[in-house]
């Protein structure tokens, strides 16, 4: 088991490195960072000075290996844009994104699993259709539109919630709903399919025949089995949310790492982009790993195998 874990870890690191190598190359292909940093009205001399100052005049591979060496010691360098250590910058903003991601996935699970169970319990009924409509709407609505709609209603027409900032938990209500709602259909439909499959299985019939209460059959016997793929999916969705909360973070002015990554790409802030990519690919890999562990805990068969 230990060897297996270690092997996975090495593979994970290699994946992260490959990602960073590709992103490094892509960013340099997309234009001259010195021009961007110098500002729009800068002359050639100013641009040259900045090129030398940041080492853009050195060969690309040299710049990359210098970065890798330092990153291995935990030093991600200094942000070109903010002129402060990247580590500090990211760890200041990571809690916002992590908090938002966890809240959103919780919201999505709380909304979609009961809907999925209900839909499976009464397939093709009005309840099923309704559950499907509610969840599919989440995916059909563009998140920027849904976010602005919420802001219009709950900040403008009925000023109950603040539309921007991240000072209190109240600031996270609307962003959580927008981000979480988007993940709902996938989880709901997987729950429904899983439940339908399980509910038709022999052991459920046996459980019912034993005279167990329907609720016990539904939740203890059926859901526990049906939920295994859902756990994996939720982990993947959480990964998406962490990296993909850019729109939500932008609209609600949350200043998390998603927005930071997006803006850093625009600003050619290479050290920041590199560090965020590395950290997020690591988080993603860890999440997948944790999902496997959770599955093993839920299903003894996986544990033994």
């Amino acid at each position, binding site marked *: 088991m230990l060897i297996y874990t270690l092997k996975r870890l090495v593979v994970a690191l290699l994946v992260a490195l490959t990602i960073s190598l590709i992103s490094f190359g892509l960013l340099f292909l997309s234009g001259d960072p010195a021009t961007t*940093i*110098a*500002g*729009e*009205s*800068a*002359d050639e*001399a*100013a641009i040259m*000075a*900045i090129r030398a*100052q940041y080492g853009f005049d050195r060969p690309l591979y040299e710049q990359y290996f210098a970065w890798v060496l330092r990153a291995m010691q935990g030093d991600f360098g200094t942000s070109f*844009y*903010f*002129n*402060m250590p990247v580590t500090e*910058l990211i760890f*200041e903003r990571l809690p916002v994104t992590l908090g938002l991601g966890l809240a959103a996935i919780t919201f999505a699970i709380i909304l979609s699993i009961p809907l999925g169970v209900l839909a499976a319990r009464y397939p093709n009924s009005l309840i099923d259709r309704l559950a499907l409509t509610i969840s599919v709407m989440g995916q059909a609505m563009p998140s920027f539109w849904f976010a*602005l709609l919420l*802001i*219009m209603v709950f*900040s*403008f027409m009925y*000023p*109950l*919630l*603040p*539309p*921007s*900032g991240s*000072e*209190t*938990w*109240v600031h996270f209500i609307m962003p959580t709903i927008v981000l979480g709602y988007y993940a709902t259909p996938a989880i709901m439909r997987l729950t429904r399919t899983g439940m339908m499959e399980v509910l038709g299985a022999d052991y459920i019939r046996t459980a019912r025949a034993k005279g167990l209460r329907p*609720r016990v059959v539904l*939740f*203890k016997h059926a*859901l*526990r089995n049906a*939920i295994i793929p859902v756990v994996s999916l939720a982990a993947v969705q959480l990964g998406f949310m962490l990296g993909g909360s850019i729109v939500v973070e*932008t*609209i*609600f*002015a949350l*200043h998390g790492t998603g*927005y*930071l990554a997006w*803006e850093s790409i625009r600003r050619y802030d290479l050290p920041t982009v590199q560090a965020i990519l590395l950290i997020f690919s690591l988080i993603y890999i860890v999440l997948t790993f944790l999902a496997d562990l959770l599955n093993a805990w839920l299903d003894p068969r996986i544990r033994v195998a």
Partner: protein
Amino acid sequence: MMMRRFSKVKFWALAGTAAIALSFAAPTAQAGKADDTLNIAWDVEVPNVNMYFDTSRNGVIIAHHVWDALVWRDPASGDFKPLLSTGWKIVDDKTIEMDIRQGVKFHNGDAMTADDVVYTYNYLARADNGILNRNYTSWIDKAEKIGDSKVRITAKDTNPLILLYMGEIGIYPQKYYEEVGAEGMGRKPVGTGPYKITEVDPGKRIVFEAFADYYDSPKGKPSIKKIVQRTIPEMNTQVVELASGRLDWIWRVAQDQADRLDKTGRVKVINANTMRVGYLQLNAAGGPEDSPLRKQKVRQAINHAIDVEGIVKNLVRGSSEVIHAACYPEQFGCTDDVTKYEYNPEKAKKLLAEAGYPTGFTTVMYAYRDRSHNEAIMSNLAAVGIKTELRYGQYAATRDALRKGDVPIGSLTWGSNSIPDVDAILPVFFGGLPDDLSKDKEVQAWLVEGKSTLDQDKRKAVYKKALQKIADQAYWVPTWTYTTNYAISNDLDFKPTADEIPRFWTAKWK
């Protein structure tokens, strides 16, 4: 997996508690006036409040509030006045001697001296200082102390904008800066300006407080006690924050949003001029040998054919102004006292006939913004017989084509980088640079003359000659000024300036 059923009572109790908690925690609309705090939003993250490490406009705005300079350009009159100095003497075209003001304090309590001035200028002149903001500083050769409160500043070359640039160079405290360095200055800035920064949350939030010990400056004492800047990237969010009273000031609001905001009555929308001007650039010296635009009468006819006033009144609207010279009216050296071409299609037709085009001609017009305005211009031209084909594209591509000489008529705009001096516009289009399509040697020589002296009266005279010839020759059709929308709280008294640097120390509550 245990699912425990909530009793109905429990559920409603919980929901009720949550609702109460929510109503307490949700920040109610904080009226900025009530706690003397001006809440403002910008859409871009401020990278660094250390003014020499930020090339963005927001950096310039912060600098004007936190760091006073030796010279101040009065936005009302355009005159240069002493700020951290008490006066100056222009020794020659490269040397200025400054008398340093006494009794000025930095935000940390230290006294500002001639040493701080010398230190700042020499720091900016150093090649290894690592600063990003070189546009205002690259002219500096050195600074020397030549008396207790006297400093001599030397430029590398003659540059007529030196005083203007000096007005952008904030004086840093030598002792403090040597102690904390560039990064420390970005976290805890110290200057002499009307506002001091008390809190920096990088990229997210900056808190300014009126500096109690601010000297008796020509800028005037700040009236509002506190300014809180927040970064809100999404304009729709800014608009809602403003309308619900959590913000007091936003800017660069799109026209449709501004109209809607105006209708709510909750806020005030101000449409104000920027330094951006629009113009048609006529390819007077390039293109084919038989190009009609090479003829002065044709260019004059085009000027007479376009109803600029009508387009401004009916299409552009807002506070846009009609211009007649190739510059923004408030720029130093700009004058409206040049040949004016009134809207007169008959005269245009007559001029075309005299030039040998009694039935007009067909040509191409390039444009990159404001399609409807350009279509109005095209219909004006068609009315006198000049048929134009519109090539509508990106700015960069349009400008590339223009530089290659492929653009007979280019409908463009220029913002002068908000520099209030014609040196930021005339040399670009008439000084022999790639965008110069008239290639007028005489005008080019005048512009060189205007750049080679610090004698402002001499400069004014020579620019007047240049602008007059540009108008006579009708190298351009100057059109109108461009505006931007500010949306502010009804409680706030704020006056925008064309250089797009909001001066919050002059803002007041009503």
